[in-house]
């Protein structure tokens, strides 16, 4: 088994699972957003890992024709993803603030309890 | 540039870089081993300013030796400039906010220097004393004299680090 060659992927998966665990097991909505951003960054990492070429350099052209460049395409995709990611984070946090104003709490179980109570009445 | 100047530059760069490395590691160890926040600020200050100066100067010399590119040297100087301005400011703000929130500094035996968290926040809100002036703020002074004026000394330390 090639540890150096696969280490990046393993770490990406561990990070993904860490983010997923926060999303599942934590009830606080802001904590969930933090988990989501941890998950997001691990995906960025997966793409950049795929784009890297051994012995390559950053895809900024130099005069020397023998230079090997890393793959620029994943970088472009991830640039877009980062910006879109922060936009979604902003919307989600705004939703959280609204939820707090409506329910007085940002804990998922308390919100559920409040909803159930409302339906009973 | 003559050969011996380049060799001299490289040697000096080596020495500077080694000094920088020593500072970096000393700061890191200090960050772990020192007892409380205010002492750890000193350790962080060693890496933030000391090692930055030495390492960036070493890199500046290596730029002269290897690349002769004024842009790289300019960027290095800008990094040095900004780091020297921003990190002490951040440290100062950190110490001041910690004191304001009532984090009491302790001496080497773990005994608090300032009597209570409220005293610490009062101390943080007070103006720094002028030269020869003892009073810090009305009310704070009594508490400080009981601890032999060491709180006063500590105020200077935490703000200057």
């Amino acid at each position: 088994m090639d540890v150096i060659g696969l280490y990046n992927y393993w770490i990406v998966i561990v990070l993904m699972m860490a983010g997923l665990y926060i999303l599942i097991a934590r009830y606080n909505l802001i904590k969930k957003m933090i988990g989501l951003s941890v998950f997001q960054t691990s995906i960025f990492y997966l793409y950049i890992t795929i784009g890297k070429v051994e012995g390559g350099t950053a895809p900024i052209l130099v005069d020397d024709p023998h230079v090997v460049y890393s793959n620029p395409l994943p970088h472009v995709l991830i640039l877009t993803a980062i910006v879109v990611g922060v936009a979604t984070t902003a919307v989600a946090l705004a939703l959280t603030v609204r939820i707090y104003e409506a329910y007085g709490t940002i804990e998922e179980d308390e919100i559920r309890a409040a909803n159930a109570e409302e339906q009973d009445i | 540039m003559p050969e011996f100047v380049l060799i001299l530059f490289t040697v000096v760069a080596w020495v500077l870089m080694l000094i920088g490395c020593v500072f970096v590691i000393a700061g890191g160890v200090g960050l772990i081993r020192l007892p409380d926040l205010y002492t750890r600020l000193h350790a962080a200050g060693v890496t933030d300013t000391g090692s930055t100066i030495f390492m960036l100067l070493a890199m500046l010399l290596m730029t002269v030796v290897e690349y002769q590119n004024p842009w790289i040297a300019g960027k290095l100087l800008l990094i040095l400039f900004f780091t020297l301005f921003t990190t002490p400011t951040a440290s100062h703000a950190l110490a001041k906010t910690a004191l304001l929130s009532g984090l009491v500094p302790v001496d080497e035996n773990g005994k608090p220097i300032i009597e209570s968290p409220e005293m610490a926040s009062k101390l943080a809100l007070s103006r720094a004393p002028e030269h020869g002036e003892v009073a810090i703020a009305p009310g704070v002074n009594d508490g400080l004299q009981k601890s032999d004026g060491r709180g006063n000394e500590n105020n200077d330390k935490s703000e200057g680090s």
Partner: protein
Amino acid sequence: MFVAAALALLATMILTIARALLGPTLYDRLLAVNSFGTKIVLFIAVFGFLTGRPEFLDIALVYSLINFIGTVAVLKFYEYDDLGSGAYQEDDF
């Protein structure tokens, strides 16, 4: 030379991360994060020389500024219990 510096910086980063994770108070974590930022700036500069492409120093420059902004934003949040009425925008951008 640069390899030695990179190794020293990596070793110190380990200690700094340990402080950020252990740190009993929030200020300890903040101090560790701030210090880590300075170290990563130095590391990027050293790494640029190591790989022979020191053009990337401007990234290190941006890092040093962002690091400062982040620390000051968090401290302002502590001190005034929120980010203040719009004042953080000037700090930030």
